């Protein structure tokens, strides 16, 4: 141990800055541009999401429009070298169109898992697995599974 910040600490700090400033802070201009590389790639894209930082901003803007009070809480992180994994839960109230579903006013709580890769202080790659099936059930857009 050298006592200096390790690479793993750096990527963890970058993850928290992204969540605090871009997602919860709604800063899709300055903070997003600073923290995400222009050639960013989402390896598990949202329907219609192409490569690039601007496409990520578009997806986030769509979430903010659907859930204006969206709050993303990181519950656990692991970091190694240039990668950081986060287990998160986001909550929000469905007040606008989202994935073609008109506002329901429903409160939702959705688990999301991400593995991000960073280079030179910017996120270059992400993989997100979100409980979209659970989200659609909470919006009443998909039937809940029958109890056994």
């Amino acid at each position, binding site marked *: 141990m050298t006592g200096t910040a390790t690479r793993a600490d750096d990527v963890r700090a970058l993850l928290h800055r992204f969540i605090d400033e871009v997602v919860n802070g709604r800063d899709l201009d300055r903070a997003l541009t600073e923290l995400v590389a222009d050639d960013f790639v989402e390896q598990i894209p949202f329907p219609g999401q192409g490569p690039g930082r601007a496409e990520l901003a578009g997806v986030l803007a769509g979430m903010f429009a659907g859930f204006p009070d969206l709050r993303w809480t990181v519950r656990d992180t*692991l970091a190694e070298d240039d990668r950081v994994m986060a287990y998160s839960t986001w909550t929000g109230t469905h007040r606008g169109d989202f994935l073609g579903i008109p506002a329901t006013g429903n409160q939702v709580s959705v688990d999301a*898992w991400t593995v991000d890769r960073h280079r030179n202080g910017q996120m270059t790659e992400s993989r997100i697995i979100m409980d979209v099936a659970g989200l659609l059930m909470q919006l009443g857009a998909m039937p809940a599974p029958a109890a056994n």
Partner: protein
Amino acid sequence: MSAEENKQLNRDWIQKFNERDWEAEATCRTADFTAHMQGAPGPLDGDGWVGYLGMFVAGFPDVQIAVDAELSEGNVVCSRWTITGTHQGEFLGVPATGRQVSIVGIDISRVVDGKVAEHWAQFDGLGTMMQLGAIPAPA
């Protein structure tokens, strides 16, 4: 346990599942093992876990899990993986379609004394249902 040992335990555990060696699979978990799984109504104990795995094996008898990447820190290991299999039995209420599926997911395991004590996992349930034709794919 080092990070490398945690990863090895995780890979061994998955290998035992792929081999359907249930006795060896159980030895990778602590007696008070708890799992927090997508779709499960609450935390699962060892018996509940075996039942959860059984649900996948019943729906996809040839199911295999391939680890795509791993991270480990302290007593925790994270992996992302791809499940492949052929839908030959009922799964989440969807009768067998004969379709091949490829499902991505991520999990975390907490390791105590060389065994998995606690486990969390999430997989692409929506993509699974689209691949089974149970819900329409986005336009």
